[in-house]
């Protein structure tokens, strides 16, 4: 009751403030801290409400951002939403670092074959299904209906690669905020990370194909491949060095971990911009090194992660929610829903095939497809590249994909949380040695 009263009071306060400065664009530029404070508290309360409804907290944050964002109530203006995204680099690095901490090679070594089988099928089946459908239905899609032959093939390959990609960020965030641990979460996390690595490489190849179809000289493509190799392997190497340094700090000093953890994430995010490393991969590698080489002792690391993760996750997903392009969704809603359903269906088929081939028997494995529905940053990044390189049809691809991201951002976390709950893995991080989620009653 007190929380509801506080939420109402905050809402009223922000509504009054926004009304008082209505139309003052200079005030909007000064509104970052206001949006930050409001989002932090109100979205935390909204997330808690969602948790009571057995939905993921991050869906609460996203919906709160959507409801209060510039496309709905406009309590968080477009400028404020954009300013809140300043935290994105830190958030992605932190989320990936936490994910790395959850992947223990000793634990997953025995399941590596299964992970590759499920991951391979989860990528290949949707890729084939979507490519076939898109190629056949291309004349009816509002992208470049007149394209034929190799041009149409190139366009559909690019679009399919983007559509198949997953969201490591959302996957890791759902695992972190629901404190999940168990075979299903490990399977989904490993599949998402490996599959996105493969898709990024695949994207390079199809973009090169599209360039050659368009008659480009190919210089850009030749340059892009080493760039992506640097991007991927360089990121891992950089992250591993940072992880080793952090592990050393944990062993020798071990104080002010929250501050140091955030500083490490800021470093990886900033270095990513300067050195063209991928913060997601660097931070994942850093977490992997810490967990597998110098696993933290005691609760200090756990507390540091808890303290730093909550505010960062809240702001990150509120900003994402406030930036969901409702206009794109309205424009291409029907096609986006159709493609989203087809994608989900093909992922379900692929995972089913992969699970059968790997002979996985635990109850969670068959639900792994529910963890692969989310799409966010990686997909958006790929579509931005397409739009900037092919301004005509690429821009229309971007609109369609942005509409689909909006759907997947909202539905994906809910589905994954449901799967984790059914597999009995929610709260597994808090159980001592809690790795037997599938053996627990749902």
């Amino acid at each position: 009751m007190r929380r509801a009263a506080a939420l109402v009071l905050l809402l009223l306060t922000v509504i009054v403030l926004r009304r008082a400065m209505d139309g003052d664009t200079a005030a909007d530029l000064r509104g970052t801290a206001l949006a930050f404070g409001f989002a932090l508290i109100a979205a935390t309360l909204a997330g808690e409400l969602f948790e009571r409804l057995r939905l993921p907290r991050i869906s609460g944050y996203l919906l709160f951002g959507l409801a209060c964002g510039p496309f709905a109530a406009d309590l968080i203006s477009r400028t404020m939403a954009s300013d809140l995204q300043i935290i994105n680099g830190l958030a992605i690095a932190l989320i990936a670092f936490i994910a790395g901490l959850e992947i223990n090679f000793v634990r997953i070594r025995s399941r590596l074959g299964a992970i590759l089988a499920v991951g391979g099928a989860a990528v290949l089946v949707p890729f084939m299904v979507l490519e076939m459908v898109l190629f056949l239905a291309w004349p009816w899609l509002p992208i470049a209906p007149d394209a034929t032959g190799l041009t149409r093939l190139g366009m559909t390959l690019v679009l399919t690669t983007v559509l198949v990609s997953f969201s490591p960020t959302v996957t890791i965030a759902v695992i972190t905020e629901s404190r999940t641990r168990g075979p299903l979460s490990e399977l989904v996390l490993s599949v998402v990370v490996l599959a996105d690595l493969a898709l990024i490489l695949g994207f390079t190849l199809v973009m090169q194909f599209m360039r050659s179809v368009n008659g480009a000289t190919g210089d850009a493509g030749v340059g892009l491949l080493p760039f992506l190799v640097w991007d991927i392997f360089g990121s891992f190497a950089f992250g591993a060095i940072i992880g080793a340094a952090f592990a050393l700090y944990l062993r020798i000093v071990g104080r002010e971990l929250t501050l140091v953890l955030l500083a490490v994430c800021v470093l990886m995010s900033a270095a990513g911009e300067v050195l063209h490393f991928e913060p997601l991969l660097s931070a994942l590698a850093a977490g992997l090194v810490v967990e597998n080489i110098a696993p933290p002792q005691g609760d200090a690391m756990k507390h540091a992660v808890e303290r730093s993760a909550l505010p960062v996750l809240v702001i990150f997903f509120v900003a994402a929610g406030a930036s969901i392009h409702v206009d794109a969704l309205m424009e291409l809603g029907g096609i986006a829903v159709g493609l989203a359903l087809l994608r989900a269906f093909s992922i379900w088929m692929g995972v089913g095939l992969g699970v059968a081939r790997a002979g996985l028997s635990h109850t969670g494995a068959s639900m792994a497809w529910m963890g692969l529905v989310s799409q966010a940053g990686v997909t958006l990044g790929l579509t931005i590249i397409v739009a900037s390189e092919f301004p005509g049809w690429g821009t229309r691809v971007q609109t369609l994909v942005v509409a689909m991201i909006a759907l997947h951002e909202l539905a994906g976390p809910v589905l994954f949380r449901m799967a984790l709950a059914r597999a009995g893995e929610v709260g597994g991080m808090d159980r001592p040695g809690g790795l037997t989620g599938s053996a627990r009653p749902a």
Partner: protein
Amino acid sequence: MTAPFDPYDDRSEIGRDVLDAHVATTPIRPARLIDVLGRTRAALGLKPLTAPALLFVPIGAILGPAGAGWLGLDLLGRLYPAMSTALAALGIFVGLGMSLDQRSERRLLAAASLEAVVTIALVSGAFVYVLTAWEVRPDIGLLPLALALGLCASATAAGVAPADAPLADRLAVRIADLDDVLPIAIGGVVLALAATSAPLEVLRLAAGNVALGLSVAVAGWLLFDRAHGEAERAVFVIGVVALLGGGAAYLGVSPLLSGMVAGLFWKYAPGRADTIIRDDLRRLQHPLVVLLLIFAGASAQPSTLALWLLGPYVLVRLAGKLAGGWLVSRVMFELSPGDIGSHLLAPGVIGLAFALAFHHASGTTASLAVLTAVAAGTLIGEVLAAFALVGPGRR
């Protein structure tokens, strides 16, 4: 006559820091000084001899656009949300530090406010006279400009009086601690005056400033006690402080005032809200203050107007503080003018904080000159205070 004085009492603005007493008796060596700056509440400008302003304001000036340019205008603009949050946090500490339910404290607050009023009146009056005589035409009203300088001048950094210090010293320190209250309250009106000259609009903005502090304080009070765990409570605390600072910045009013109102509310509201916010904010206080000082130094831009303001600012502030101290000694017989005067010289961080808020609210060349003059005046004031406090026969 007065309540037993405990320097570590929760009523003091910033609260307990056991290193302070040790620092007071330690000989000053450069390495030791740097260590002290990083670890004690001297980082809040409360200890004249080891005032962090002397270190961090010049660092900011060197890094800022007028210096090496590493902290560019764009970066400073991006940092302002953190700055408004820091200003609100300072206001909260001032609010939490008041104890209006004790008669002795009310008497000290009255004395501190009297001293502050004298300084504000002298400095503001002097600047109205000087600027008119020099025929300076600032791009902001003369009255808000002069009042802003008066308010910046009136704030004092309180030192630390050990439990065994003479009563006069302990009272003087407490007066220096409380003399920020009235300037912060008046500051709400001055910032509104800087934004508009219409009386009704000024009233509306000032009332909005207080209402913002109250509404966010009530929301925080409803949340703090019921947080599920430490992480969620920290989220609520950070969110509330950001709302206080951000809401005020958004409206163009004083984050210090909204923070002070909220701090005062939590102090007297039932429950543990005051303890929770004090404990959680204490972890952030040093980084926030260091950031504020660097930001102030970096924002300063030398100009002819700033140079013209600096001399009178330092001199009239000194005169105002000594006159205010003398007047206080007339109404508080436990104190002699010499006891209190030297304790009122160190400007500390609140004056700079107000100059920052004023510049952010008005954004004019004149307000930038005020900020620059106050930053330079703070450095000079800290040096003067150091000599006044450690000279022969003192401490």
